[in-house]
């Protein structure tokens, strides 16, 4: 006798329930009850009307495990359709990641180092940042971690560029249309609060393991959020008086955007990009579980095989890489601020 029999009796659904009574596989509790060894129920037996509990009273109601199963089947059913859409769209991502990784793996180490240092110098013009970068790169090479470090760097590079490419226009659009902002902010909240592993679950089903877009998408989804948010914020915070001046002198919306709003929002956008870079790094380590190459693989090996030293050394390299990226992007940001308010 189940707790909620009365409910279906009152509603007059008894017949309907019994008609569909299923003899599905029994749960452990039911099996135990059959053998008479069930734990004696103490106190008032008033269970929450959960699916399992209702199922006991009425066979027509599915159990929770069936709902979970249905969720899975549903996802698997839409998978072919999703794949026909997503496959061609995301294919370029695979190419970009594979191409960049190939470049970083085949080019000689001194060329890569030189290129990175030149780029750092032109974006920051700061000798201390340049020296710190040189130190980090030499350290990676010295402890024979140059290759995985560059793999991680290559993945971050590609993912950050794509995040900026999509994030900045989305942010601008959000700042222009309040409705769009209202629609997108919950999505951004969701992307930021979802545990990082949860991203990976649907992706594993959608894309064959071993394809680089699998981890590329996971990283981009996670890292694109700050650049969208800060672009939106930055454009909204642009001095209304200056925008009005643009209007008064007859600027078109496009001129206003390129001559007024984006230049004035640039510090905020750069701050967003800095965050995006840092989040890409965090995610590229986790994404090593789904074949993302680089330092994360070594961390994973350290955990799996209890190789403490391997894990720690990779960890140190990740920290150095993080500090390097952070300092460099912040120095580039402050250079932009300086030219703006040069005193």
């Amino acid at each position, binding site marked *: 006798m189940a707790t909620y029999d009365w409910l279906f009796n009152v509603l007059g659904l008894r017949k309907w329930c019994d008609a569909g009574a299923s003899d599905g596989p029994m749960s452990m509790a039911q099996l135990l009850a059959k053998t008479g060894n069930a734990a004696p129920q103490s106190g008032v037996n008033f269970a929450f009307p959960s699916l399992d509990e209702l199922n006991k009273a009425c066979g027509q109601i599915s159990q929770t495990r069936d709902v979970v199963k249905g969720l899975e089947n549903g996802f698997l059913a839409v998978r072919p359709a999703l794949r026909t859409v997503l496959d061609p769209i995301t294919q370029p991502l695979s190419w970009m990641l594979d191409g960049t990784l190939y470049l970083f793996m085949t080019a000689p180490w001194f060329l890569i180092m030189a290129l990175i240092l030149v780029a750092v110098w032109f974006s920051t013009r700061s000798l201390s940042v340049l020296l710190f970068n040189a130190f980090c790169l030499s350290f990676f090479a010295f402890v024979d971690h140059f290759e995985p470090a560059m793999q991680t760097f290559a993945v971050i590079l590609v993912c950050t560029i794509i995040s900026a490419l999509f994030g900045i226009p989305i942010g601008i659009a959000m700042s222009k249309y309040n409705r769009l902002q209202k629609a997108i902010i919950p999505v951004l909240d969701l992307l930021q609060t979802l545990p990082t592993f949860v991203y990976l679950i649907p992706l594993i089903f959608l894309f064959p393991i071993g394809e680089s877009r699998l981890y590329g998408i996971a990283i981009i989804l996670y890292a694109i959020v700050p650049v969208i948010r800060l672009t939106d914020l930055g454009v909204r915070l642009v*001095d209304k*008086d*200056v925008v*009005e*001046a643009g*209007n*008064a*002198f*007859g*600027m*078109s919306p496009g*001129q206003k955007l390129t*001559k*007024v709003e984006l*230049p*004035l929002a*640039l510090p905020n956008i750069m701050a967003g990009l800095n965050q995006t870079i840092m989040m890409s790094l965090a995610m590229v380590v986790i994404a090593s579980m789904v074949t993302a190459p680089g330092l994360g693989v070594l961390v994973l090996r350290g955990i799996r095989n209890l190789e403490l030293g391997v894990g720690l050394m990779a960890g140190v390299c990740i920290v150095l890489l993080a500090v390097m990226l952070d300092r460099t992007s912040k120095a580039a940001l402050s250079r932009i601020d300086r*030219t*703006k*308010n*040069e*005193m």
Partner: protein
Amino acid sequence: MTQTTKVSLRGLYKIFGHDDKSVLPHVKDGMGKEELLTTHKHVLGLQDINVEMQAGEITVVMGLSGSGKSTLIRHLNRLIEPTDGEILVDGVDVMNLSTTDLRKMRQDKMSMVFQKFALLPHRTVLQNAAMALDVKGLPTQEQEREAKTWLARVGLGGFENHYPAQLSGGMQQRVGIARALTSNSDIMLMDEAFSALDPLIRTDMQNLLLELQVELKKTIIFITHDLDEALKLADHLVILKDGAVVQQGEPQSILMNPTDPYIEDFVSDINRARVLRVRSVMQPFSEGKFAGDVQENDTLESLIAASGGDTALRYRVLDGNNNAVGTLDMRDLVKALVPRISSSEAGTRYH
């Protein structure tokens, strides 16, 4: 001098709120600002504004904060859309312009100077001054040549490659003025352009504007909350209160004949000797014994200084062509210095 109307506002109404058109009839039937706010949750911005602005003149719109003067000036280039009424610029109703035509008009016919300067912080002084031409898409060389000329004209030669943040407030506003002049438009809108500057710099800038105006003869619409500034600059003075025009006309005549207690209050506080001119207090010409000649546009202050304070004297008043147009008795002058109500009386009446 024959006058041509450059800009005219006819029956202009502005109501702020989500459904301004529907409450317009109430306002036209005479509902006041407070009643509109409490019963319909709409804010009355402007009501029934009729102003004609003449070409080559400085029209000053004066009012206290909240009187709608900044709202008014933003209607001229449609930065704010009116609820009802006509805005004619060179005879063309601005309300009928398409977006592109409106943009064209803002580029070619009107320029604006802002209270908070509103310069682009990431651009140099030169680039800021050239903004209007940049918007029009002129070649850079031409832009810079024009901008340099005007920067030199407002006294900023040599500062071309500085950034706005490196300049003082007064200098930044000079850039603002140079930017407006570089656009080469006939109409200049000045929204409390000098209000953020300290008094000495403000006087400097007023003199600069008057000096430029002698030469350029722009149609200037100037917004201010400062009566002294208004009287100094205005050819035509419009006084706003609660979104309505209380009195408008030639500043001297407003000063001599205020029609509203609100304006009497205003004018009771100012230095009348400095703003009143001989022509406002003179009598029609009659022969007699004169202590000397004065120009009709001299201020009373200068005459007091010339007479040495002697109230028994009589002067002959000459116009610009040295024709005698009137006589001035120093006793009339002294009487004119006393407002109809004194500032202390006004204080007890209204505060």
